[in-house]
């Protein structure tokens, strides 16, 4: 054990400086741990199916329980992408044939902010789906009688629709985005999701 630079007596408890071989061995351990965590879980994840079939008439609650939430009811042939769904955080990713539906619960800081939801959606789409173009909003009414806004979504290979319903308390909103390939089958699937979108219900009811 080397004496310290000040010439002080060296103690028995001095930590040893790692040897080059020891240092590289520990570096190997660090790189292995980081690779395993970063790539290992992802690879393992790819080996497991991500489709959870939903039973006909299954209901999904979006948002916390109670009046500040919404419910949608699925028909036959729907499935859920479990890795992109989190009921506790209020988002779901569903599929029916070639059509994909993403549902999100949006918390609004104030009642006046509901007015900015359509512009906000346009901005969020530039982040999440940069190739998509959102059309102008038109009125839509849910089966429950709740008024909302809907608009067309288009991109080079996809067509769809975005719909927003503001909750009765106006402190939250539900956003539904439907996308399907720009094919005859895709457009048929898109048309069939209209009923699903209108099935959205607020337990607190329409205002």
């Amino acid at each position, binding site marked *: *054990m080397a004496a*310290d*630079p*000040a*010439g*002080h*007596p060296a*103690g028995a*408890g*001095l*930590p*040893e400086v*790692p*040897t*080059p*071989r020891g*240092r*590289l061995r*520990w*570096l190997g351990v*660090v*790189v292995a*741990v*980081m690779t395993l*965590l970063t*790539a*290992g*879980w*992802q690879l393992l*994840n790819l080996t*497991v*199916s*991500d489709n*959870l079939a939903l039973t006909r008439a299954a209901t999904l609650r979006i948002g916390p329980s109670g009046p500040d939430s919404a419910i949608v009811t699925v028909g036959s042939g729907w499935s*859920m992408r*479990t*890795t992109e*769904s*989190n*009921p*506790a*955080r209020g988002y779901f990713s569903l599929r029916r044939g070639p059509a994909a539906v993403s549902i*999100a*619960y*949006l*918390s609004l*800081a104030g009642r006046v*902010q*509901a007015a*900015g*939801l359509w*512009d*906000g959606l346009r*901005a*969020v789409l*530039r*982040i*999440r789906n940069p190739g998509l173009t959102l059309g102008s909003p038109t009125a839509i009414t849910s089966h429950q009688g709740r008024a909302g806004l809907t608009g067309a979504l288009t991109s080079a290979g996809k067509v769809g629709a975005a719909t927003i319903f503001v909750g009765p308390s106006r402190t939250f*909103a539900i*956003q539904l985005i439907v996308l399907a390939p720009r094919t005859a089958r895709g457009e048929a699937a898109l048309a069939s999701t209209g009923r699903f979108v209108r099935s959205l219900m607020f337990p607190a009811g329409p205002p």
Partner: protein
Amino acid sequence: MTADDSIWTVRLAAAVLCVFGTVVLAWQFYRYLLVFPAAAGAAVALEMPLLLVGFAAFRLLRPVRAPALLWSAAALIWGATAAAGCAVLANRGLTGLWAKSVGVGFSSNWSDALSAPLNEELLKACGVVMIVLAAPLAINGPLDGLIFGALTGLGFQVTENVVYGLNGIVTSGATHPAQAVLNSVLVRVGTTGLGSHWTMTAVAGAGIGYLVAHSHRGGELTPAIGCLLLAIGMHLLFDAPAVSVVIKVSVDFAIVAALYVLLRNAFMERARRLLSAWAATGVIGQTEARSALSRRRRRSELRRTSSPVVRYLLELRQRQTMAAVEREAA
């Protein structure tokens, strides 16, 4: 391979991993900067006080003298880039596995608590190990490990806070991006900041410090593993649903505060004994023994010296004494 070669290999590998983490984060979030430049800028700017105050405070918490600025910054950068970037990918993989294996209902409540503690504590602890390997003598024992762990955790915490701020824009429908960012900062800095990542990595870092201090005996893995498991447990508590925020933050803060006080007192006791022994045998003077552990007394000693040459030599001597005390008392 010489010792120098192996040190530079470690430093290069650390730099590559930090760049990799930065690229992952940039790829995930650069569009926020394009679409919401003001809010994204605010998300970063509002974290700067936490970053600067935390960085200065953690360095001051090390008794005798602050750790080297370069390696303190390296620990912070590892947490903010390499650990945070890799955690994005690791957490996505593991939370996905939970969702597929135990059901959406359970996983939506628990997948964060069962994924992030394992992934993130290991990724952050790797940063403290890299400091041990890249900067010989920067970490001599558990107290040094705790300080470098806190710095690594702080870097991670700042990046995570920015990410949560950006996500808040989307979950509020982008109706008021600046307010969404501000709300997130108020919660994550003002409410949970005191018991967040820095506390957990400080505990894991102390374990790595134990490993370094006992390396001459072939390594003592038990305290290191114990500290890592405690850090994972603290993180699990922090992410667990249905536990009050006050309890989470208080418990994590209390654990790290108690560990710090224990380690600091033990270190200072050993350091005082060492200095007394050195003074008794005439290796150092009584005045030096009295002033070596106090920043204020050392500065005062330097100020009393009128000759610049003598002051330079005295400062050099103080540094050597401090280095010797730090190594032996660790």
